[in-house]
């Protein structure tokens, strides 16, 4: 079954109504990937909505959730370290489909953007069953709410740094770290996102062994990554 909601609010309501059987479909690079979330599910097609632009207003950059990672890379409005993070999706063709909203909404522990946007103190503008709401990216990612992201809002002049560790450019990341304006964030494969105002956030993570590396390796990287030079 494919739903074609006419408004974002309708999409959110459908998602709530069919919580166990339906998923949003945007770029499809995760949902439609082998063994992805769409397998056997109904689809709520949100590709027709208009939050697919990157604009600036009052020193803030509004990144539409339906913008692709390639759109982010190509936009001079977006802070450089966030553009760099979008490039952690190594494949150009994949980046041309994968959306910002999808990358955040799936809450993958190797999300390309999660650490960078969290460190950037970015905010989500989103639709919930109760209407529009704003929420910091970090808080959203650590919750399990099913809101539909419309925009990611970030300061235009935000500066920061981001670093990825992974077996190859195309494999799942072991760890992604970002720092901006005194906010530190870590996306750790198998463990998820942590953030805070000190590099000691690395101590909050429960590290696990997996295909991307041992718990000890990840813990080591998390412990030193914020001391590395650019």
């Amino acid at each position, binding site marked *: 079954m494919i739903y074609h909601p006419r408004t974002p609010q309708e999409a959110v309501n459908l998602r709530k109504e069919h919580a166990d059987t339906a998923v949003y479909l945007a770029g499809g690079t995760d949902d439609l990937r082998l063994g992805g979330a769409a397998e056997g599910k109904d689809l709520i097609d949100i590709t027709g909505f208009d939050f697919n632009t990157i604009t600036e207003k009052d020193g803030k950059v509004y990144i539409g959730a339906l913008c692709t990672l390639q759109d982010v890379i190509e936009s001079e409005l977006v802070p450089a370290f966030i553009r760099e993070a979008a490039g952690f999706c190594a*494949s150009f063709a994949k980046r041309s*489909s994968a959306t910002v909203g999808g990358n955040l909404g799936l809450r993958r522990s190797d999300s390309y953007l999660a650490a960078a946007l969290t460190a950037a103190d970015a905010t989500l503008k989103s639709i919930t069953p109760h209407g529009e709401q704003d929420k910091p990216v970090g808080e959203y990612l650590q919750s399990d709410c099913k809101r539909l992201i419309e925009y990611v809002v970030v300061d235009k002049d935000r500066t920061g740094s981001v670093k990825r560790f992974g*077996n190859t450019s195309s494999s799942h990341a072991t760890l992604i770290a970002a720092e901006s304006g005194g906010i530190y964030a870590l996306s750790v494969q198998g463990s998820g996102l942590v953030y805070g105002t000190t590099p000691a956030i690395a101590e909050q993570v429960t590290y696990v062994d997996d295909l991307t590396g041992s718990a000890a390796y990840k813990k080591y990287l998390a412990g030193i990554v914020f001391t590395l030079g650019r």
Partner: protein
Amino acid sequence: MELKCKINGEEVTLRAEPTARLRDVLYRAGYRSVRDSDDAEGFAGSDTIVFNGKLKYANFILFYQAEGTEIRTAEGLLNGRELNNVQKAMVAAGIVQSAYNAPAAALILTWLLEQKPNPTREEIKDVLTSIFIRDAGYEHYYLAVKLATELRDFGEFRSEIAPTFRPSLEVVGKPCGKIDGAALVSGEPVFVEDKVPENAWCLHVLRSPFASAYIKSIDTSEAEKLPGVAAILTAYNTPETHYMQAGQGNPEPSPHDRRLFNRKVRHVGDRVAGIIARTPAIADQAAALIKVEYEPQGAVYTVEEAMAEGAPLVHNGEVIYNAGAPADLAEYNKLAGDEREGKVVYQFPLGADIHKNIAASNKGGIGDMEKGFAEADAIVERTYQTSQIQHTPLEPHVCYAHIEGGRLVLNCATQVPYHVRRIVSWVCGIPENKIHVIKERVGGGYGSKQDILVEDLTGYAAWVTGKPVYYRNTRAEEFYANSTRHPMRVKVKMGGKKDGTITALFMEVCANTGPFGNHCLTVPMNSCSKTLPLFAVDNMAYDLKVFYTNTPPAGAYQGYGTPKGTYGIMMAMAELADKLGVDYRTMVEKNHVSEGYMLEILKGLGEGREGNVVPVGSCGLDEAIAKGCDMIEWGKKEVSDDPDWKIGKGFAMIMQGSGLPGLDHAEAIAKLETDGTVILNSGGADLGTGLDTISAKAVKEVLKLPMEKITVVSGDTDSCVFDTGAYASSGTFFSGNASLLAAKKLKEKILAEAALQMNEKVEDLDVRAPGEVYSKTSGKALTYGELSHAAIAGDGRGQMVAHGSYVTKASSVPYGAHFAQVAVNVRTGEIKVQKFYALQDAGTPINPEIALCQMYGAAMKSIGHTLYEDMKLDENGKCINANLTDYGAPMIGEAPEDFKSMLIDVNDDFGPFGAKSISEIACNGAAPAIGIAIHDACGVWMRSWPMTPEKLLHELGRI
């Protein structure tokens, strides 16, 4: 549903289920260039299209989303039948090889040039991140873009494509493009999947969840009742014939240790049942209805586990020898276990002892090891471990079989058409004349398609059901149900004097062949037979054992065992040089062989028989080492601005073979057609390497015909003649020599016939372009067309047909040296290959542009094996990273920053036009070169594959 969209500028109406993947719909609608290499993993990019102006993977677009859209596929790049500039440039640059996703690559680069007419290297690299190239590396893609812009701007290629060799020859040694390049890059239906009709039945294999278990019972009755199920094959209704899947000369140096289905499963993914059904969905349903009761047995996964006292036995059935049975065989067989174990049939002794899990063994040597080590000032004894590697061809293993005229016809992607025919003949119990194998274009082999992994079952399924049957591995099955590179433990003991002279060299190799003995002797043998002969050392010995285990199967892989042996032996030499305080280059130069050195060590290193002791022939080793050392500035220490990054250099000398002298055999037939053109039927199997082009060039050089008047038909067992196949680097040397012989014999026949027709003496005649015989005395000339017409005009002497058959005991060995400069971050463990230089002596490179790309491709693969690729098994033997992303296949992001291939100009005495092999050898150098460079950078010897950051940090004591 039905929808309209625009494809390649044409309004099209398509019909499919709304949630069908657009890739599948486009392919079925005839857009054959939109292929699938990864089952919608979003990795390989064979499914790349331009969708509403953007490059996207068609697997990530559902059919309904195509309504009203504008789509471009590679089919739209052609102008009539003419290639566009990018496609022409790709063929010219030598990157169209196995070419499964070459059309997608052409589309990507065409799109790029539309967006950015003069793209930078970084911009080219950026779009090529979309696509996985395994055969040719990425380096000549940059050249292709440059050539395409030149063609656009100047109407011609202006850059040098490749160096040229042998000025006296017209096309040999010159970059001319592959003769099948246009068909491949334009997306013509040239692969097996393109030959499958709509009414084909599918074959689905139910696989074992256990690494080792007896099948106690199997009930297929419910599944068989399903409408649309033609048959279900199991161990209980298929032949008892024991065979093996390695494509090797008959009798094979591999045990016949399997049936189509066994009553004991020996690895996770082993065959349990084969379902022939109308559709994949019905086959899945049927698979779910099959009730299998297993009796799990103990399993072993490593050579250490396999050799342990009391280890579970992978094979414990009756052992049979077809020749050379040991006197105590009857006693030995009294130890056989459950009858469900089956049999192990050796064609001749391979040093096996299945009661110790030993599938094969061999030992030997020259000189006096004790004396040699006693003379040494220092000795190192080290162990190196390699991992289990998958070939990852872009086209998975695939076969289509059907019955026609009472015969079994198989369309295959194979390196060994004649071995396929023989083994299918055995399995089906029908003679070879009842089987027709057609080798289609092969979308990547690298050794895995030397093994008959799917043709046996597909052929049998078609033969017993009478249905047209199609089988294709999933990408996951490629990992757990296919063949892989043998993991090996290589122990090297090496002694040397203070001046760098090696006094003794010993290798102990323990290889893991998995559950079956495909290539169990030959692959590990290569770890010694293609490494020890590099050394001019009087005292050398080897001891190799090959163990059965319950891992996914191992088999042939480009380079066979040589990359692993080279890794061990060169690393050990570097360690010894370090211990002795001798410069590594000095030690290499002091101990390597040179032309004329008699290779006594080869006596014991034949493939199941006594080896040929021969002198070193043409050898470009000195030049490769000297040039490479100059290029990488050997001895100059590089220092990074960042104190965390340390830089080091390393290199390795390498060798391989050119086929198997005394074992390989190649044949070809050249026919002068009625209009004076030539069709050459070659038994050789071109798997994208340009072998057909080599055959065509041989005809051109001999008969002076234009290339467009020469057609090569190859790999078809009905129309061609026997060839052992494309493996062991035999293609150019054996099949090329057979084509050359056929062309020379055809020339003799042409001259003899012309002498009669022209009333001239044969010795006064010769041939010249564009295809005629002329008299050196009278000046008379006769075109091939006139000659041929008269020969078949009713009163003539018949069509001129010549047969070339090539066998030899001569050995043409390619040599080379590969160099690496790496940067190592001692805090993060990151390893970057900054520079990689591959220098090889290939004799006369007949297709130099293709040769260079094969060097890039093989070196890139080898870099992947060294640093990233690793099949990981869980505690139950299940492969847990059976996809390209998790496995660690290297993409353009992993390519060295500075990557060069260079051909050392050496003419060989035996190869066609002086050619030797090119591709396999290029797999051998990266591991030791990088390993030695890492030590040079940070003082750590990395003694296992893959050399990961985590392992490096461990060695540095940081974790």
